[in-house]
């Protein structure tokens, strides 16, 4: 080997030595996070998709309902209200929030590899783990406000455009009554209550005369008492009997009635907001880890969609022998167990307060969520730290 004699070449005149900026640290700097945030935010196509799904979809749905109700209030109910709120949150924002967050995460985790910029970042000497971790606050800084804006639109419309009368079990009932007040109201409106409230308390709720537990009350197809529907030979109930039955039904239904609102309560809106933000954050962090692990955005996004719309509902609703603990360890199952009690089961099934098939304590659910966040972050960071580029 031939080497150069030192004297043949000039010595450096620029200041030698490395800056003391702790760039080997795994902790990202504020500037790294800010620039990564800007890099993601400037992806115009992706941002449009995120905004359309998180804000546009619920907005369009609510605007259509507002217009329909404004033009034909008899055919179309109010645009907002408690039921619309829970349906939109659990059926749309929860699922689509996760999917768009996952898409953003997969993008943040893979585009530097795909676009050939990762090697530029590595040759700065910055810790690869710090490069990875900078994406978490940057991405959350985008998806959390987007979901919050979409959710705020839902909250405002559902509160402002809520119905003025509660339609409970087919009867228009004043909202917010105490148990004695509801019972008294039911006694005064026995004709509506007897044919609409809890059938088990009344014995008859359907059309035609049926055997009642206490007294046979015939109901017509319109949900009103129809004494002519009783078979011949069956004595007609007296008004007192019908009033008593209505009051008994109201008392029995009170616990369910108590959870009915014209508009979503503030406490529920706060809880549900945190719940869908948690789901979106999980989607982003897991998507980020998966994107980094695979290094390919499209495949990562497809896998995340499969997780959310196929595997999670399957594991949430099916009871698979010998795999119960596996089902419990799926993050979508765990987050469903963290939903506010007034919300229906996620993935569009069941009514408020209904329990999913797979049981899991709140603590177990929290641990599963934490485990998913930690494991996927570790996997993504490890892959970024070890990837040849």
């Amino acid at each position: 080997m031939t080497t150069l004699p030192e004297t043949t070449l000039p010595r450096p005149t620029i200041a030698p030595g490395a800056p003391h900026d702790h760039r080997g640290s795994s902790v990202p700097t504020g500037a790294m996070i800010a620039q990564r945030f800007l890099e993601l935010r400037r992806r115009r196509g992706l941002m449009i998709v995120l905004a359309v799904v998180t804000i546009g979809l619920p907005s369009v749905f609510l605007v259509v309902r507002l217009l329909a109700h404004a033009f034909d209030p008899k055919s179309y109910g109010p645009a907002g209200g408690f039921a619309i709120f829970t349906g939109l949150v659990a059926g749309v924002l929860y699922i689509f929030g996760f999917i768009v967050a996952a898409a953003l995460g997969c993008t943040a985790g893979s585009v530097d590899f795909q676009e050939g910029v990762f090697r530029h970042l590595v040759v700065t000497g910055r810790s690869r783990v710090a490069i990875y971790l900078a994406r978490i606050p940057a991405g959350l800084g985008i998806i959390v406000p987007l979901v919050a804006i979409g959710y705020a639109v839902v909250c405002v419309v559902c509160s402002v455009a809520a119905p003025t009368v509660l339609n409970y079990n087919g009867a228009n009932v004043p909202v917010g009554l105490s148990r004695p007040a509801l019972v008294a109201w039911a006694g005064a409106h026995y004709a509506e209550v007897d044919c609409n409230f809890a059938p088990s308390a009344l014995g008859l709720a359907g059309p035609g005369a049926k055997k009642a537990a206490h007294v046979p009350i015939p109901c017509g197809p319109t949900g009103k008492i129809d004494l002519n529907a009783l078979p011949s030979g069956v004595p007609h109930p007296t008004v007192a009997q019908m009033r008593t039955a209505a009051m008994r039904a109201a008392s029995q239904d009170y616990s369910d009635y108590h959870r009915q609102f014209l508009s979503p309560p503030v406490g529920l809106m706060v809880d549900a907001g945190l719940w869908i933000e948690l789901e979106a954050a999980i989607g982003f962090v897991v998507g980020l880890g998966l994107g980094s692990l695979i290094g390919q955005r499209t495949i990562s996004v497809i896998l995340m969609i499969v997780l959310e719309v196929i595997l999670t509902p399957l594991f949430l609703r099916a009871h698979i022998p010998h795999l119960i603990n596996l089902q419990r360890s799926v993050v979508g199952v765990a987050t469903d167990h963290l939903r506010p009690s007034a919300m229906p089961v996620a993935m569009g099934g069941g009514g408020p307060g209904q329990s999913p098939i797979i049981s899991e304590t709140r603590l177990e659910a929290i641990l599963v969520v934490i485990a998913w966040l930690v494991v996927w972050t570790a996997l993504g960071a490890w892959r970024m730290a070890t990837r040849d580029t």
Partner: protein
Amino acid sequence: MSTTTLSDSEHRAAADSEWAVATHALTKRFGPNVAVNNVELRVPRGCAFGYLGPNGAGKTTLIRVLLGLTHADSGTMSLLGYEVPRHRDRALARVGAIVDEPRFHAHLTGRQNLELLASHRETAASDRIGPALERVGMTQRADDKVSKYSMGMRQRLGVAACLLGDPELLILDEPMNGLDPAGIHDMRTMIFALVAEGRTVVLSSHLLDEVERTCDALAIVDRGSVVRQGPISELLASASVFLQVECSDVERATALLSTGNLGLRVESGAAGLGVVLPPGAGRDLIAEVARLLVVNGVELYKLQPVQTSLESWFLEVTSRLGETK
């Protein structure tokens, strides 16, 4: 990729190191293929150093290993006196590099890409964005999206990215690719200027002429191994000397020179007779060739030594290696 803390004396020792790049027995394998084979490379500080080799010789792989983009299987290396990968954060803080073609986020402007890269360096790097763009002649187009850039503009932007860290060492992988003649001239001028400032520029290229014009020293790599390295003038001086011969009897001259024990290689063709002298041959041997022909009755019309170009020397060196393997 772990890093450890350096003491002040270690920093001083690194700064005093005479080599910008030093490797010892560096090896990188991809399965059965040895891409970097036991490389001993010494790049002095403050010069333009060419890293020359044919396609597939392992040039880019060595650069990737040096920069920590992939790991070495064995051997040691240091950049600017800092051992890597142990102190890669310190070493790379003053290194700027383009590996393969420079690629950037196409949806961002050139300036925004530099801002992203600067955020990963020290705070002062952000202040160097403007001067770096100006230096590579990209100020006018800095706010256009990179998707609209030509290959040459991306090369310039890549060099600007290298300058963000005020580098002591620049490693440029095929920086002339995609540049038009004016761009090549500008790039060459800039490399001269960078070296004049005391920076070290390692220029990986297969463009022999460009390396010869730009660099002070070079290493030739073939099949993963460094086969020669040193100042270009010294390397060429040690190369074979070619003599163009015009004489009255080419066949007789060929027979005389081939059978003699002077260690000559004789090539006859339409253009006349060519004689390759062994490396390091002096003027005495040229005189001996003339004497041999004249004494044996061959009339000599022309005897001209031709300086070996880097290209012919490069082909000579790499093809010789191929024969031995």
